[in-house]
């Protein structure tokens, strides 16, 4: 269609302007602010240069947070991707007959994270919680635990909730990719005598490599910025054991009023997200060449 570029830009500019105003500009501003030491209550700002970052490098809580974010990334990928794939493939065959099941797997995503956190906090409660009661009832008393109150279990407990909540979402994404594969490819595999597993391994998986990588990127980025569930369930505790970058940043900014230090943590989050993105873009790029 013939058109002038000006018209096209007029259609794009409102969205781009709002985006730049609320996201791009503040993003740069955060990096600038991380070079200062300042409080939200006073207009005075002291230039610290890289001081905040030097302090971060020796901060044991930051180290805990980084390790926990790493654990979040690793476990979320290892648990959610295969499970979401199983569900997506299942919906392509068995679950096609049961639309209700699809709704069930997706439903935790609809529930506010705060509500999810509250439910599971009660569920995990060491004294009155349903989980310990269930284990008792099943004769597994030895497995009962302090869950969220246990320093070594808290993060794992919250990751489990996150898997419960988001697997349905990743199922939807993989399902979309699955449905984009033309039926005649499967028919060809069937004619060649491939069984279900062979078809999945040699037809479905290679064709879905790209969307699996995109989904893996979403999981990774989501694990770098994870906040809500932890904030509701443990506030990063007990004694910082379940701390992640986002909870630590939030506390530094809005409880301890160390705005510059918090901005530095936010910048670290940003950099990690960028690194993850570059890695995945490289991976998809290389796949694109071989296929």
């Amino acid at each position, binding site marked *: 269609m013939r058109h002038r570029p000006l018209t096209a830009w007029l259609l794009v500019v409102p969205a781009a302007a709002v985006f730049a105003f609320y996201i791009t500009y503040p993003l740069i501003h955060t990096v600038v602010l991380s070079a200062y030491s300042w409080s939200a209550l006073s207009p005075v700002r002291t230039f610290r240069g890289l001081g905040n970052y030097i302090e971060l490098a020796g901060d044991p809580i930051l180290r805990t947070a980084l390790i926990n974010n790493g654990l979040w990334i690793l476990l979320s990928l290892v648990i959610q991707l295969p499970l979401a794939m199983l569900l997506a493939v299942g919906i392509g065959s068995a679950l096609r007959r049961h639309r209700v099941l699809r709704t069930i797997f997706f439903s935790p995503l609809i529930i506010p994270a705060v509500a999810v956190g*509250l439910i599971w906090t009660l*569920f995990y409660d060491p004294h009155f919680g349903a989980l310990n009661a269930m284990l008792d009832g099943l004769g597994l008393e030895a497995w009962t635990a302090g869950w969220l109150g246990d320093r070594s279990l808290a993060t794992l407990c919250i990751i489990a909730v996150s898997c419960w909540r988001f697997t349905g979402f990743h199922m939807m994404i993989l*399902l979309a990719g699955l449905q984009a594969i033309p039926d005649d490819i499967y028919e060809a595999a069937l004619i060649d005598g491939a069984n279900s597993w062979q078809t999945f391994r040699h037809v479905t998986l290679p064709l879905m490599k790209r969307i699996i990588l995109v989904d893996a990127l979403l999981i990774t980025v989501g694990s770098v910025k994870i906040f809500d569930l932890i904030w509701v369930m443990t506030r990063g505790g007990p004694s910082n054991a379940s701390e992640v970058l986002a909870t630590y940043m939030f506390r530094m900014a809005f409880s301890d009023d160390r705005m510059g230090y918090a901005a530095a943590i936010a910048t670290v989050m940003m950099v990690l997200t960028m690194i993850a993105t570059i890695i995945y873009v490289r991976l998809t790029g290389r796949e694109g060449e071989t296929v």
Partner: protein
Amino acid sequence: MTRRAWRWLWDGLFALLALIFMLPLIWTLIGSFRKAGELRMEPWGMPEALAPTNYLAAWEGKIGLYLLNSTVVTIISVAIIIALSAPAAYAFARLRFSGGQLAFGFILTGLLIPAHAVLIPLYQLNAALGVGDYLAVIGPYVAFGLPLSVLLLRAYFAEIPRELMEAAIIDGAGHLRILWSIFMPVSRPAIATVAIFQAAWIWNELPFAMVFIAQEANYTIPVGLLSFQGEHIADWGAILAGVVIAVIPLMILYLLFQKHIVRGLTAGAVK
């Protein structure tokens, strides 16, 4: 193993998984009708009577007000997101112009940016502008909603056949007119998908709401639930009832639109 046996096994596996997925929700629903004391004594028991006591307590605890706030904020934000992203998506999908790809990529970066990375400057900005609580959250909600909306709508718009537009072009209709009277009606699945994803996100959003909404009277559901829990820490029944009330509106929305969701996503996945 026979094909039939496999099918049974497969179905059984999914039924079991579904049960595990549902268990906490069923527990929540049942618990919302039980007295706090019973609930703590025997977490897996059934309610003594189907009395709405907890729901009344939750409603008195301003859950109704939070519900209203969330509804207003969500509807306004989603409407603005669609109003801004549809023209942009149309331009990206249908008009080739220099810098178009760059502008598209620029907006897409938003998919990856953590809210925490802009929290402090926006906190300052809101304080400086002195905007009210609603406006303070609607701005960032719209901005963060744009990338996914532009992405999904662009993919859908790109697949709309040219023939649909030709009559309108011959009539001399402008782009906005074509967008409004041809693209939007045809793209209902994509718009429904965008609307439900954005509504779910905004309805659930915590950090912005926690920092930017100053007055309790303006709390949205997530902040409101947290403060409600703080005030009723031992009253598990009331907390669970509050949770159920908070979930219902989105559940209804999802059930109404769910058949569109996969279709709306698929267009995005092929590209």
